[in-house]
């Protein structure tokens, strides 16, 4: 459990998060109403924020399951950090209804939601069985049903393991981890196709799902590093944490940074080289006008700089530096999501629309702030490390022997 001192600190942090969240949401809503027509601006900016912050919930769940699949020592200390994140999926469900379904049925987000549009475009008409409002809604419910089931099962088992010390719960988590991750990857691929790729309904890319998943992994590892450095002096973590754990997490951040770049570059190179009319529009929309600047920012600051910094061991073992890189990664994630999503909107092709950029930043602060408030509430509910998980004890054993 958290110490009293930390609880007080968290209380303050929660108030700030709530305040930032409310201000961000109000600014984004009012700005959207003033600047946009029929609320389009609101849906657009909130969609970018939703797709970015959703990575914290879904990514946490994936990281939690991955921990049980691999059983590595590196992830024991962030287990409860991820579990708490997975318990916030309901927040994204509510937001999804408001933003995704709201944007769909109001005709503000997805061009294909209009029957006349589908009939006028042969390629879109060809995929009408997937891109229509009913399928979108049913799939939305199915995706969340899968994620709720996984998050609920794992959180329940983890709680029961704490209470009883019965290792059969651990075995169950281990056995189910593989199938759960498969379900996660498949559902996330389809969700990414529905929610983001279909914003440009004639475009397609087979790697898109993996691209979103890679970005979410990056988000959650950066967030976990921030939380771990914040909670490092708390009972349960304090006795176990060593420099090597920061080093491992820094390595994972490096790994996912490279993986994200690898996926992004592969997609770019193949589409650019193919130069097919039905595909190349995606990159023309994102490289014309000022958007090249964002692309350059991403290339330099979301790949080259963090990669070079994280290659150095001392950057990963120095807490302050590692924390700084994690914050920096999260900021870059915003630019990545803006670059990925915003140019898909019809009046945003090939240009930066400053109002959307600012409003989506406000909406990100809004959704992120509210989410963080809920997240901290969830985090406080359980001890910061699993209580009867033998891996926690084995960390002491390994520690003793590595100094023997």
């Amino acid at each position, binding site marked *: 459990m958290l110490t009293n001192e930390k609880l007080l600190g968290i209380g303050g942090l929660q108030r700030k998060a709530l305040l930032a969240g409310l201000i961000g949401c109000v600014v984004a809503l009012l700005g959207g109403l003033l600047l946009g027509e029929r609320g389009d601006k609101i849906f657009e900016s909130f969609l970018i924020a939703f797709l970015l912050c959703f990575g914290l919930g879904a990514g946490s769940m994936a990281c939690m399951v991955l921990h049980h699949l691999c059983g590595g020592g590196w992830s024991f200390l962030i287990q409860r950090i991820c579990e708490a994140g997975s318990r916030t999926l309901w927040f994204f469900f509510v937001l999804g209804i408001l933003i995704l379904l709201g944007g769909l049925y109001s005709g503000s987000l997805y061009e294909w939601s209009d029957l006349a549009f589908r009939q006028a475009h042969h390629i879109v008409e060809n995929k009408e069985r997937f891109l229509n409002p009913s399928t979108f809604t049913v799939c939305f419910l199915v995706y969340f049903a899968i994620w709720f089931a996984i998050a609920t099962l794992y959180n329940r088992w983890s709680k029961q393991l704490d209470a009883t010390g019965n*290792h059969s719960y651990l075995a169950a988590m281990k056995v189910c981890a593989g199938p759960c991750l498969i379900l996660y990857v498949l559902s996330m691929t389809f969700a990414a196709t529905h929610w983001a790729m279909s914003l440009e309904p004639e475009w397609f890319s087979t790697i898109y799902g993996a691209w979103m998943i890679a970005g979410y992994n990056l988000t959650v590892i950066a967030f976990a590093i921030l939380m771990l450095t914040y909670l490092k002096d708390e009972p349960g973590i304090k006795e176990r944490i060593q420099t090597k754990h920061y080093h491992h997490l820094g390595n994972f951040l490096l790994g996912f940074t490279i993986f994200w770049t690898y996926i992004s570059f592969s997609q770019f190179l193949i589409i650019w080289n193919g130069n097919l009319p039905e595909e190349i529009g995606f990159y023309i929309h994102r490289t014309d006008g000022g958007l090249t600047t964002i692309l350059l920012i991403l290339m330099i600051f979301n790949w080259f700089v963090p990669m070079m910094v994280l290659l150095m061991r001392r950057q990963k073992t120095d807490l302050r530096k590692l924390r700084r890189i994690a914050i920096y990664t999260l900021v870059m994630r915003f630019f990545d999501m803006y670059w990925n999503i915003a140019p898909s909107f019809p009046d945003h092709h090939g240009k930066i629309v400053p109002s959307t950029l600012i409003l989506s930043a406000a909406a990100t602060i809004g959704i992120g702030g509210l989410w963080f408030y809920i997240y901290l509430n969830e985090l406080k509910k359980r001890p910061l490390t699993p209580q009867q998980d033998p891996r926690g004890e084995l960390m002491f054993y390994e520690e003793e022997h590595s100094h023997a």
Partner: protein
Amino acid sequence: MEARIKTVPPVLKAVAPLMEDGHSHESISRAVSDVVLEMPMPRPWYATISVGLILLSILGISTAILFWEGLGLWGINNPVGWGFAIVNLVWWIGIGHAGTLISAILLLFNQDWRTAINRFAEAMTLFAVMCAGIFPLLHVGRPWAIFFILPYPNTMALWPQFRSPLLWDVFAISTYFTVSLLFWYTGLIPDLATLRDRMPKGIARSIYGFFALGWRGSARHWFRYEMAYILLGGMSAPLVVSVHTIVSFDFAVSVIPGWHTTIFPPYFVAGAIYSGFAMVLTIMIPAREWFGMKDFITLRHLDNMAKVMLATGLVVCYGYGCELFFAWYSGSDYERTMMWYRGFESPFAWVYLCLLLCNLVTPQFLWIKWMRITPIPLFIISIIVNIGMWLERFVIVVTSLRRDYLPSSWGTYTPTIFDWAAYIGSIGLFLTMMCLFVKFLPMISIFELRLQHHLMKRGEIR
């Protein structure tokens, strides 16, 4: 601290230790180096090298005839200009991935179980890349002019096409081979010194001594060795990914339906690791039996390799799924027609179904622990995966090329006896090289096993 847990609870326990009990540093050195120095080769070794040499002769004869008659002996023609040659190239390069992955990436991930299998897998990598290299060499038609692919100033004003991934292949594969060779050789130096020291005076001892580079095991030697090894590991890790990524670009940067798909790079890399691990298992399962290495290559190693194979197999299946779904989702008539043709209408539709059976269905058996730790079923699965991965490349290459955008240029492909001869001949080269490797070099890293034994005794690893 005394009250704390000292033994691993059953739920977290591995299937077997990294090394069986009852060994000392001396017994480890003897067990591995005796295969080279003392032990007569077992009968299956003679049988394998005989088969290898016969197949190698087939390669030699068929290549000589091919040089004399020309590439018309192969089944390639318009529109399928890339037949068995590219299928075999991709297959062998894929197999060559496991070695450096085990050596470099598992080294960077601190995976202790790599120790007993890295040497073997690295050797396999080198031989697989050599086998792969045969095919582009033959496929260019005039192998004596192969140096034209290199960018050098010449009076004919020839300059390679740098925008072609085929040229990137040349650099990627040659770099990969060079670094893998260096990595393998660096790791061998301390063991070559062990062989030198255990060997009676003679030419063989001089040869081992020459290659041991005067290794004496001093602290300075070990310091430099460790530094070189980790640096080479760091250099090799991106190469593992880059090579098959570039091989996937050979197809993906074109505009042929079925080739031009963005999932290819990670899907090819996963497929390469999948087939590489399958080949390591295919070779290692009998080898540990024939050469008495079961104490060092335990069921834990088989279990872990099977898990890696399952994980990468699932990524490959994800790639198949994405190809299928997005061919439909694209709404493009060309993509949809190609996928329908591939699965149902093509004369090679049965090949596609077989590959799904091999690569999609078969690895699912690896969810069962018993299958992962029982050598014979695992061996059978590894063979099936090897076949499946070859079929995958065949389907990608042939079905997409047989029918492109222009119906008037549609055609067919039938491999000839010379195609088959080159393929099975390359397997002969691989088998021969593996047999020679086992005969003349320690198949497991002796000094790393000794270190592992030391750490196990101290309780640092289990």
